[in-house]
């Protein structure tokens, strides 16, 4: 048990990411409020990015930005640059999706006067659309 806990402590970033991922996924799927669904999506993506970044972190090494150009950079100095690059790409994707989805929410509100998806579905069934 203490073994488990100490591993969990070592993996604290990933563990937090898991919790955030689940909170985000819950909100994305089961919250009827569209804006909170989107917040859930952003939380979920943030959690994944945190997981990815922590996969590239190495204890005691620094960010891969070279300042001393006299020698060839050594692997021992810098952390793994790949995850950071991937997350950079990912963040752009998630902000684009957020903007698109928010525009949809605005239009839907204009049409149905609510942001609650289940209420919208109910009013659609009544043939209000």
């Amino acid at each position, binding site marked *: 048990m203490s073994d488990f806990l100490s591993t969990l402590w070592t993996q*604290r*970033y990933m563990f*937090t990411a898991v*919790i*955030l991922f689940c*909170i*985000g996924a*819950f*909100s994305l799927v089961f*919250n009827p*409020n569209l*804006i*909170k669904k*989107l*917040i*859930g999506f*952003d*939380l979920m993506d*943030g959690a994944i*990015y*945190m997981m990815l*970044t*922590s996969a590239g*972190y190495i204890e005691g*090494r*620094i*960010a891969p*930005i070279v300042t001393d150009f006299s020698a060839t950079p050594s692997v021992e100095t810098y*952390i793994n640059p790949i995850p*950071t690059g991937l*997350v*950079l790409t990912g*963040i*752009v994707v998630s*902000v684009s999706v*957020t*903007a698109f989805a*928010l525009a949809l*929410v*605005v239009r839907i*509100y*204009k049409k149905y*006067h609510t*942001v609650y998806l289940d209420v919208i579905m109910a009013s659609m069934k009544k043939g209000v659309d």
Partner: protein
Amino acid sequence: MAFVEVLLLGFLVACALTAVLHRSTMITILTYMGFSVVMSVIWMLLQAPDLAITEAAVGAGVSTALYFLTLQKIRELKESEDAEEERRRKAGEEGRK
């Protein structure tokens, strides 16, 4: 250092829970903004300054601005609807008189 980490990570989880569970959409968006700011500190801890800058500009800046714009738009619409409703009601009352 460990203390700071626990504090930040705990704050992230607390923000996420508040954002998801709180009734008010306004609070949700504000806590999400807090989440983004703390996230950018965490990127610094994880030695990813590129991400810290991007997260601060995008998560706490652009995303939040878009959320607020949406909320404002919705409020505006709601107010104009209410006004319209009011006008219609008054017109109806006058008609009845």
